[in-house]
């Protein structure tokens, strides 16, 4: 049977490897990748040395250690999701404006072409 530390270490290493693989394959842009590298290294550190969490929990006066992991984890995920929605709104708006300008440009080009043909 595996020890708690082995399990967390394996999960952490898999996650770190996944992030590096995604960056290597250009699935993540370097700017976005940076936060994930920091995130994955933190997970790696906590996975290999789970005692750190116990120490932090003790320092903050939290008796039941998993609470701190869940609370901080959910908070980080929520912030990340919010950021994702903001970026998504912005990109949608940019795509929309770009498309509008493109079709208008095509129309104006067509208009000029028609005028020249009539001349």
């Amino acid at each position: 049977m595996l020890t708690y530390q082995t399990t967390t270490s394996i999960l952490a290493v898999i996650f770190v490897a996944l992030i590096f693989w995604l960056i290597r394959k250009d699935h993540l842009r370097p700017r976005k990748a940076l936060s994930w590298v920091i995130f994955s290294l933190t997970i790696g550190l906590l996975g290999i040395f789970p005692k750190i969490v116990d120490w932090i929990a003790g320092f903050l006066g939290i008796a039941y250690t998993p609470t701190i992991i869940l609370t901080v984890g959910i908070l980080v995920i929520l912030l990340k999701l919010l950021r994702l929605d903001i970026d998504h709104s912005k990109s949608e708006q940019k795509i929309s404006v770009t498309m509008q300008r493109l079709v208008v440009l095509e129309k104006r080009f067509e208009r000029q072409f028609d005028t020249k043909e009539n001349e």
Partner: protein
Amino acid sequence: MDTTNESIASSDSIIHNQPKIIVIIPAHNEERTVGGVVLSIKNQVNWDILVVDDFSGDSTANEACNAGAEVISLDFHQGAWSAIQTGLQLANQEHYDIVVTMDADGQHSARCLKDLVLPIVGNKAEVVIGVCRDRVGAVRSIGWRYFRRISGLSIVDLTSGFRAYSSNTFEVLLSSEASMLSYQDIGVLMLLRNAKMSIVEQKVEMFGRMVGTSRVYPSWSSIWIYVTQTTLLCISKISILRNRKDEKA
């Protein structure tokens, strides 16, 4: 046409007091009515007519083109307001003086077009909203009273798509704030008001929808989404207004 010709043309139109006007009709799957709408406009005025085909799956673009309108087809479905913005981009780039927006479903009467642009031609307003009091039912009346209160707007028909805009408004209507909006209604009116544009109402006649259902209110769940979304918009923008007033004070 080159730039010199364009500037001569626009100064000519000012001398003869004949503004360059374009009617923008956003259309999404309106093949049954769009042709008739275009023809009814042609019977009344000789302005340019632009149908913005919002990625229709039917022959809306063909029908509009056959009726004699210019057509721009969007590359993917965007919603009525984005379609109107596309038309406004063209109007802005080609130096139109006035833009009129009209629904493609035949609700708005082309007979009222001249009345609608009159306040802008006479320099009395920058935005004209076509209002039809008969259209306001009991439920809508309560809804609009609520929206008037939270938005601070005093316009009777907040969702009327029958509007005229002067060229002064193009910058506001094409701003990145404006392209975040989904409908041509309260959000757009609030932007215009914040930009100090003068908005007037003009009584017009409207017909019941010939076919299909309203784009903004197809079902109860969408009404609920619309009400909450618009409420959120109004509340968030009102706080900005208050902050601005505080800064001035």
